[in-house]
């Protein structure tokens, strides 16, 4: 095989070339699918003026885990694009919030389904689409709408990104991925929307062909770098029960 391997030895190396100003998408919905290890490496790597795309800015729960909130605290973030820029529980104060209130970070608040669809559109070569979501709300004020078959819809644009950081359960050497249960969430969509997709993988990388072609959740076409997660405590949030129990 002529192509070079997609498997990287460590997280540091896998995120080393993410440039200042990059648009980076972070997979995950609550814990599953969240790239804690890659995010920790990005914190150490130090790229600045990032645009961070994710469901939430993170940091709502203890103990803290590497997330966008930490990148904000570390001075690496220019803008977030999220479905939550405040916590669902109004009494929770996010690490992100004081930075946002002081105007040090910009934020674009996007309904979750619109966020998913904008990512999917970018990955599918669709530059813009219409959605019923958010019509009649503050989010639609001053924006372009269109009546189609008697109902009003909002115009939304694709959301491409430079890098997707995601987490998967299994991968083969061709980069084909499988996610377990709700780990899937935004991960395949962000990979489709990204120029470079970097994956932390829970299981050792399998040889090409070891995953049934019918059971691939994300084809290797969308996957560029794979990093197997080492056992805890070096690897973060290993989901193997025996390791967590240590």
């Amino acid at each position: 095989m002529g192509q070079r391997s997609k498997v990287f030895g460590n997280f540091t190396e896998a995120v080393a070339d993410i440039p200042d100003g990059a648009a980076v998408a972070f997979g995950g919905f609550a814990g599953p699918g969240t790239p804690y290890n890659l995010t920790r490496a990005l914190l150490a790597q130090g790229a600045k003026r990032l645009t961070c795309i994710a469901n939430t800015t993170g940091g709502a729960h203890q103990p803290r885990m590497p997330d966008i909130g930490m990148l904000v605290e570390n001075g690496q973030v220019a803008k977030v694009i999220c479905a939550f820029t405040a916590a669902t529980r109004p009494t929770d104060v996010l690490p992100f919030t004081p930075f946002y209130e002081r105007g040090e970070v910009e934020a674009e608040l996007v309904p979750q389904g619109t966020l998913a669809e904008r990512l999917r559109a970018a990955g599918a070569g669709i530059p813009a689409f219409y959605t019923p979501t958010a019509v009649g709300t503050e989010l639609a004020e001053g924006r372009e709408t269109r009546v189609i078959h008697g109902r009003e819809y909002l115009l939304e644009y694709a959301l491409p990104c430079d890098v997707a950081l995601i987490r998967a359960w299994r991968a083969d050497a061709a980069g084909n991925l499988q996610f377990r249960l709700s780990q899937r969430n935004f991960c395949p969509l962000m990979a489709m929307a990204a120029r470079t997709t970097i994956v932390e993988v829970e299981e050792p990388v399998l040889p090409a062909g070891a995953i049934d072609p019918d059971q691939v959740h994300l084809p290797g076409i969308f996957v560029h770098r794979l990093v197997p997660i080492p056992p805890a405590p070096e690897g973060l949030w290993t989901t193997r029960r025996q390791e967590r129990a240590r």
Partner: protein
Amino acid sequence: MSGWDRQQMADRLAREFQDGWIVNLGVGIPTLCSNTDIGDRDILYHAENGVIGYGPVLPAGQEDLHLVNAGGQNVSLNPGAAIVHHADSFGIIRSGRIDVTVMGAYEVAASGDFANWKLAGQLGGGIGGAMDLAACAQRVFIILEHTTRKGEPRLLRQCSLPVTARGVVTLVATNLGLFAPAGEGFAVRELAPGVSFEAAQTATGAPLLPG
């Protein structure tokens, strides 16, 4: 005044679910609906993160860390469950296949408007899937405490906060009972044990109409 606790509020709304419905449960009290015993009705619980066909929250030690509901709780799966990604999950929502979405809220108006994403003076907010669900589900049910911690009413003539969607709420469960937005006020469908009509009216920012 007694009234319902959180699980009882969820149980009461879950009694309204009809056989064959696809039900989406939002963060907070609504997630308690999947703990309710629904007897022989066939209800499919859908979570915005692509989990179709889940059941009760599992106790610590029995949970699968790869599986959460919309509230991030580790739930169980029922036979016939299926997983999709976020775009397909919201495709199910936007295409009108959710029979009812149950959400929390800060305010509900007699017009059926509701507000659950942004507090007064807050910069930013927490929308999550609420706007998609509110705009596209067949029905929107709301569960919320009848008043704020300061005792101010949350069932109002008009929302004071930025709305999530307009004119969509058809049923509201609170600790005081079950109410239906009815334009000028709220129709009282049921009062919780120990709650009088007068007490409920006092706690409500719009006329209550005898059910």
